[in-house]
């Protein structure tokens, strides 16, 4: 019985509600303070899970099949910590933007409602509650996307709308069908019933509907087009928030549902997802290489990186799942860092078009340094986090003798480096293209860089502490493959 399991969600909901009530002058400070409290709650849960093992909490004193239970195993705890971290960095940057650049009256509240949805999705054990959490984060992200600007943002939101709503409706259908099949929405119990049923066409169909819904959320090939069509129009802070968390919720849900409820269906879904992962990596990185705006290039890249996450899920071995856990954390941090750096470039130069940029390394050495660290981390240069993350994926592919995916992952790694080099050589090296810079004080410039520097430091730290981080990932993978500790913690904490 630990309230810590629900603390991240409660804090995010409470801060979000307070932000709605607070006046405009309190919003900036409230956004940062709230995000730090949320990070503290996430950190406390992470520490507790690593000290005492899987934690569970039954809401309202009703035990699970009747009520809704939250549970945090190592995978959930890692992702909740990631949510706290990305949330804090994004809040630090969003608090510095003006209403024109996207800090509207409702922005702080919506950021926290989105975080609450993400946390709830990572922690819940109830399939219908997972659907509600998805809707919460989806609706918040719609409004945050529109708040990013004018007509372009609204057009982007319309493009985001149909796939977003469609995936939610498919999820609802999958949840309803699972209930029809098993008579329960409590994931461990549903898993036990599915195991009794064995593999039948009905089970395969239900698993397929759920897999499609989560694949749409995760933006994998061939259902990824909505992501590069919408994220570039958001403000950079919101793009960092979406890229860091939203696709990862889709990947998390895939992993959770297909290890806990439908593990038997991986026999056909695994090979399919492996092909999907390969195509996602290639298409995403080729799309990124063709772009000439920083944010557009980076958001295309999000798609490519989701491919790496899905490789681990598709292979399904302990080493592969460990690579997914490590990769999620590394990738979200590096990608959010790059997008926040893009936000600073936009704020200082007024554009992120590569043709109009140049010489940032000379005029803004600190910003350039942080960008370089994150870009090299993303490309997988040792000793940064991305090197270990890619190494784990490649090692898992070798162990499973998935040679095609191994070759694709290695090749896409090179292209990733190339696309990062494209940004670096045009925007950061070269001559200053003479775009007007905005004048800010020295202290102002330092505060502007704080969120970028924070995430760059995490990327470095994760690379240096790869040993402990790998242990955490392996523990998470073994808990996913053998959910008995998860089920036992839920049973033990039942009132």
């Amino acid at each position, binding site marked *: 019985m630990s309230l810590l399991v629900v603390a991240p969600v409660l804090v995010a909901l409470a801060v979000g509600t307070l932000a709605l009530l607070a006046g405009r002058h309190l919003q900036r400070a409230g956004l940062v303070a709230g995000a730090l409290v949320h990070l503290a709650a996430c950190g406390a849960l992470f520490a507790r899970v690593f000290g005492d093992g899987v934690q569970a909490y039954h809401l309202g004193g009703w035990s699970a099949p009747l009520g809704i239970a939250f549970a945090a195993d190592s995978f959930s705890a890692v992702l909740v910590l990631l949510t706290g971290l990305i949330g804090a960095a994004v809040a630090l940057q969003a608090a510095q933007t003006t209403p024109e650049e996207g800090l509207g009256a409702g922005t702080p509240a919506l950021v926290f409602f989105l975080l609450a949805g993400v946390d709830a999705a990572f922690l819940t054990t109830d399939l219908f509650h997972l659907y509600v959490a998805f809707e919460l984060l989806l609706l918040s992200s719609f409004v945050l996307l529109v708040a990013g600007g004018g007509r372009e943002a609204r057009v982007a939101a319309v493009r985001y709308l149909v796939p977003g709503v469609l995936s*939610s409706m498919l999820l609802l259908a999958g949840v309803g069908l699972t209930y029809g099949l098993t008579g329960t929405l409590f994931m461990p119990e549903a898993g036990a019933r599915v195991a009794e049923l064995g593999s039948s066409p009905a089970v395969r169909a239900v698993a397929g509907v759920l897999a499609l819904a989560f694949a749409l959320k995760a933006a994998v090939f061939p259902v990824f087009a909505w992501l590069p069509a919408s994220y570039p129009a958001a403000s950079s802070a919101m793009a960092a928030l979406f890229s860091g968390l939203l696709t990862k919720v889709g990947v998390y849900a895939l992993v959770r549902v297909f290890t806990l409820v439908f593990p038997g269906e991986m026999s056909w879904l695994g090979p399919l997802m492996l092909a999907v992962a390969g195509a996602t990596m290639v298409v995403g990185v080729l799309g990124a290489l063709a772009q000439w705006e920083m944010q557009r290039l980076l958001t295309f890249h999000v798609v490519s990186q989701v491919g790496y996450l899905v490789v681990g899920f598709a292979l399904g071995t302990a080493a592969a799942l460990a690579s997914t856990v490590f990769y999620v954390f590394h990738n979200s941090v590096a990608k959010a860092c790059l997008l926040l750096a893009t936000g600073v470039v936009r704020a200082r130069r007024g554009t992120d078009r590569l043709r109009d940029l140049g010489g940032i390394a000379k005029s803004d050495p600190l910003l350039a340094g942080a960008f370089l660290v994150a870009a090299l981390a993303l490309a997988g240069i040792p000793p940064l986090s991305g090197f270990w993350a890619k190494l784990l994926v490649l090692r898992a592919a070798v162990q499973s003798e998935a040679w095609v995916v191994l070759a694709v992952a290695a090749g896409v790694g090179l292209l990733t480096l190339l696309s990062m080099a494209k940004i670096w050589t045009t925007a950061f090296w070269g001559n200053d293209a003479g775009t007007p810079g905005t004048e800010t004080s020295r202290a102002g410039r330092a505060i502007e860089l704080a969120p970028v520097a924070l995430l760059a430091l995490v990327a470095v730290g994760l690379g240096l502490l790869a040993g402990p981080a790998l242990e955490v990932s392996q523990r998470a993978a073994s808990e996913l493959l053998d959910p008995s500790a998860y089920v036992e913690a839920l049973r033990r904490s039942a009132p």
Partner: protein
Amino acid sequence: MSGWLGIVVGVLAACGTRLLLRSTPARRAVGIVLFGIALNLLVFAMTGAEHARAPLVAYGEEAPRGPFADPLPQALVLTAIVIGFALQAFALVLITLTGRVDGPVREGAEP
């Protein structure tokens, strides 16, 4: 009864999918609505629509007398309808705001 529901779900989902594939936002919005109704009906069908009796416990008895309808899918559908309505309302406002209700939405195409 379940068979009829299945046919209705199928027809609604087919119409919804057809409209979702159109390029005009207004048609897509109608597609979303139809598809949503289809999937709500699908979840509703999980109740087993044959047993149309409410699961009420008579005074002095311990359990409702069967066969009765399972109330949980109905509660789920109710929640889904409310959430879906909010999403659809937001979608319609957004489509109106883009100013292109009747034409395809394209990059850089100012109204």
